[in-house]
């Protein structure tokens, strides 16, 4: 059985930054057979551990690319370096650094399948609810993610 992993990233208290976590939680509540769903509230260094040993990893997070709020993005492994900028946290690093560190550490054990789903955020102000644009887009993101992992878990698509 391949280990298929969905990792929702973000901060529940920071407006649209909760989107990735909420997408993961929605899938967890629905239940997706053969898929492990993790909510990553902590920093990137923990992500390195979580990813280790997985055959397919789908990361879902709020993003800033300049697109209209609510836009759904999907990136493959090869797109990642160009997309991510440095995430500065005072005590840990972000998703991009975690993936880079993982690659540096386990050059011979790269995750066979890795994709990042993003949802364009509007505001990450603390204490704010999700913006309307993100609320409206979230079900679409969840559906897209579900379709992809279900096909993979069933073996309909290849790793």
């Amino acid at each position, binding site marked *: 059985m391949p280990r298929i992993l969905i990792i929702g990233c973000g901060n529940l208290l920071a407006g649209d930054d909760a989107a990735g976590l909420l997408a993961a939680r929605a899938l967890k509540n629905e239940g997706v057979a053969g898929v492990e769903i993790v909510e990553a*509230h902590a920093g990137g260094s*923990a992500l390195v*551990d979580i990813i280790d040993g997985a055959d397919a990893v789908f990361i879902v997070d709020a993003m800033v690319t300049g697109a209209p709020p609510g836009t759904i993005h999907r990136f493959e492994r090869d797109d990642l370096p160009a997309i991510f900028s440095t995430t500065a*946290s*005072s005590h840990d690093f972000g998703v991009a650094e975690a993936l880079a*560190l993982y690659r*540096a550490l386990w050059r011979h054990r790269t995750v066979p399948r890795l994709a990042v789903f993003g949802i364009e955020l509007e505001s*990450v102000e603390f204490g704010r609810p999700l913006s309307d644009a993100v609320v409206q887009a979230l079900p679409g993101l969840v559906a897209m993610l579900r379709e992809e992992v279900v096909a993979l878990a069933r073996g309909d698509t290849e790793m």
Partner: protein
Amino acid sequence: MPQRRIKVDYLARVEGEGALDIRLSDGKVAELKLKIWEPPRLFEAFLTGRSYLELPDMVSRICGICPVAYQMSATHATERAFGVTVGGAIRKLRRLFYIGEWIESHLLHIYMLAAPDFLGYGSVIPMAKDYPEAVKRGLRLKRLGNDIVVLLAGREINPVSARAGGFYRVPARDDLLPLLDRLQEAKDDAARTVEWVASFDIPDLSRDIEFVSLRHPDEYPMSEGRLVSSKGLDVVPEDFESHFAEEQVPYSTALRSTIRGRGAYFVGPLARVNLNLDKLSPDAQAAARRAGIQFPNANPFTSIIARALEVLHAVDEAMEIIQSYAQPAAPFVETRPRAARGAAITEAPRGILYHRYDFDADGLIRKAVIIPPTAQNQRQIEEDLLEYVPRVIDLPIDQATLKCEMAIRNYDPCISCSTHFLKLNIQYS
């Protein structure tokens, strides 16, 4: 661009920023200002009117990396106000809880932040290509620290089980026993960490420094004991404010602390090791001797070794605590509020953390004072830089900046994380 603005806004609220302004005159440092942006201390204001029962969960939000420290200073201060003493298994579990945080925090610092400085890498990512086994060792140890905190309090960020008198829920013995095997492995990792950092090329910045930490007669200091210094201070934590003063400087939002009548002082792992070498576990003491670095040590750059020694001690003590653990009948000691003042100091990963609260008869907070370690170290950091900057100022600006960052990072201040956090502004006149 709107996305730029959002990002900066987010950082400004949560993370902190640092800038170092240096004015040189005739090649000498005429003025040096370390500007630290710390979140404004609104916490002290909005805790007012809140119940002592809400306090631990509110203060844990002050810091994402050392929430346990905030919870421990708050709960100990509350217990002192209400005249409650916590002993036995609950007291030991709290030490285990704190140990988890120390391990987590120290490991992130040693492997992810400081080691790249010492080994000449821009960040841990290129370093990991050349030192994969070391970085994996660091990640393994850090995960152990996280897992200890999660086991005791539900999650590693803003853990939710601490309360005045103990915990809301305590683990059964069987919950803790699986950690023993991992701690046994971690012991080897921790010993190798000490050897590794002791092999680094460590600049010498030894000076006359006043080190301040807790000291306890029977144990390595964490949440109890007297407040002592390398220059003879020896007081109860409740007297902190009589011996230390906070000052506002116009260029920084962090209040700087001084010892009244003397000036800057140093808190954190190096202060603890210097003042409590005899309380480290026997194996940690032996590792210190083998490392070939003399302690007490007045060189701030040896902080990374002190951190590694504390990790080894923490692993030893965690094993001892778990081996002797029996689940207490109740997870906390009953606390009955009364109108009183309580103050406590505990040893956060970065040094002493002072909390003082005035409660009314219902246990509502009338006044709160919180003095974090980074603010206490700020003036000491400036003094280190005054000494260090002339030695590196002739280097190209990017290298000089890196050296200054490295000197600041000895304190693992709350601005230390982003790889290049410092803006170095040099003005020649």
